[in-house]
């Protein structure tokens, strides 16, 4: 029976990426919107925030949420909403730059290790093994203690840490691409290694790299807040979400529980959004992962 099932007469469905995202992965699309919202709020923080993040108002100390202060005020009378908004700015800067740098490192190591294989691969993979046997947070604490606290150090350390770990994912993608006919074809007509890597390998391992970047943004933000929480993050008075949950703020949380709520909710929302958005991207970009969750 070779009958072809007649296709039902449907409206022509838009196949643009964003349309597919909304249609197939509404939760992921929502995550993307939340991320975009935080990005915009973070970038335009000085214009969005109702107060300055460090504006001390002794008369307004420890006030609960109100119309004047949506998220309440802290022990110095600083507006928590404004601090959270400026916190978004820091998170966006650190998250995006460290994730971008990490993805670059993952890409470089993964492509070199995966494409050349053999001894290069073996040596690189053993180094990655050794590196990955240390818990991220322990490495962060040690390296930040060596470099001293500060934004550039934190971005660099997080990027290196996550970049080396993530190289595994890129490598496995490269290993499968390497054996494809079009790569062999390019090799046999004498294309240079650089050209093969740039024109043939890279475009085909781009989907996992994009997904890697997206999920890394969330990981970086979480790791940075963990460091700030331990007092090793961006030094005060910078209002990072992590530092708002730690230090002197903790002693006042028992009188003003709203102090614990706002930064934590911001963190959870951003990480939740990157997770669902990353998952959706992976499902749409990587046909092998379709249908699994």
């Amino acid at each position, binding site marked *: 029976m070779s009958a072809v099932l007649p296709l039902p007469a449907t409206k022509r469905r838009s196949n643009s990426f964003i349309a597919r995202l909304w249609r197939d992965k509404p939760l992921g699309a929502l995550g993307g919107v939340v991320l975009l919202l935080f990005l915009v709020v973070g970038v335009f923080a000085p214009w969005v925030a109702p107060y300055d993040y460090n504006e001390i108002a002794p008369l307004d100390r420890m006030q609960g949420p109100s119309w004047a202060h949506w998220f309440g005020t802290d022990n110095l009378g600083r507006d928590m909403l404004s601090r959270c908004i400026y916190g978004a700015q820091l998170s966006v800067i650190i998250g995006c730059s460290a994730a971008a740098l990490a993805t670059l490192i993952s890409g470089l190591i993964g492509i070199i290790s995966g494409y050349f294989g053999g001894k290069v691969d073996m040596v690189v993979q053993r180094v990655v093994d050794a590196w990955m*046997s*240390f*818990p991220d947070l322990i490495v962060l604490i040690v390296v930040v203690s060596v470099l001293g606290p500060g934004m550039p150090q934190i971005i660099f350390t997080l990027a290196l840490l996550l970049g080396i770990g993530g190289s595994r994912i890129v490598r496995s993608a490269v290993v499968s691409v390497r054996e494809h006919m079009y790569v062999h074809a390019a090799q046999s007509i004498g294309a240079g290694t650089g050209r093969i890597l740039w024109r043939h390998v890279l475009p085909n391992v781009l989907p996992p790299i994009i997904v890697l970047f997206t999920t890394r943004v969330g990981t970086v933000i979480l790791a940075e807040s*963990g460091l700030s929480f331990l007092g090793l993050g961006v030094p005060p008075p910078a209002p990072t979400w992590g530092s708002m949950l730690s230090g002197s703020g903790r002693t006042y949380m028992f009188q003003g529980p709203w102090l614990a709520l706002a930064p934590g909710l911001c963190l959870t929302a951003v990480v939740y959004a990157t997770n669902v958005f990353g998952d959706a991207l992976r499902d749409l970009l990587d046909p092998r992962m379709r249908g699994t969750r």
Partner: protein
Amino acid sequence: MRGYVIRRLLALLPTLILASIIVFVTVRLIPGDVIDMMLSQNDVAADKKSREDIIAALGMDKPMWQQYFHWISAIVLHGDLGTSLWQGTPVTEHLRARLPVTFQLGFIALVVGLVIALPIGIYSAIRQDTTGDYLARSFSILLLAVPSFWLGTMVVVFPSIWWGWSPSVDFVPFFTDPAANLSQMVLPGIVLGAALSAITMRLTRTMMLEVLRQDYIRTAWAKGLGERLVIVRHALRNAMIPVVTLVGLQAPLLIGGAVIIEQIFVIPDMGLLLLDAVQQRDYPIITGVFLVVGVAVMLINLMVDLSYGLLDPKVRMR
């Protein structure tokens, strides 16, 4: 089996050596001004140390390769990780006191994680696409997104506000009073296990879905076996291998995450030791913790590999 274990241990050697070099080089990266900082902090320390003493204590007055061999041979031959710069006590002594607490916390977190993850993951798979499945999956993504230190903070702050209850801050070792110790460790264990349970739940569900579609499961159903038998004996056991791998891979997460959790619940484990050492720039302790944790993670991963043979008879240890 024994040959396999020996070969695996030998294969671990290059990784171990590389890890020790990473640890060593990190200490070498200490810039000089940190030594100055230690000197300036010396006024509050019990005994006075000169710059040369500190450099010598860090072994930085010799060529780098000599320092490495001196350092590594002390570890290999005598199990000597050096002495604390401030207290002058052996690092191994500090570690011996703290390591069991970290492992206990990690173990509780692991048990909590699995107790939450396995039943929900299995339920989610056998009732795929039902409301329960959607709820379970949303719950797991949410657990993944909640930072453990925030969850920990809430667990400390809100019960205290609502019921005036707060966790005890005086740590009781397990062998002194098991009941008091457990009542202290369970809450941090749950907080630490929450993130682990989310990841494990998702993978359990995915693997169960895959296994449930296999022919031998259909055969088991066709033979008329009960649901419990099919799920537990036939499906779960086969779905477990990737889950065990994942749990093994989470070992660094548990140990690292413990650093933050014990800070909140004031549990004197390795994390607190490390943080204190970082604040005091006590480098021998930092390298000691760094190295021991790395080796522990490698051994856990080895144990995970060895456990495959128990779960799956098809995996022969050769």
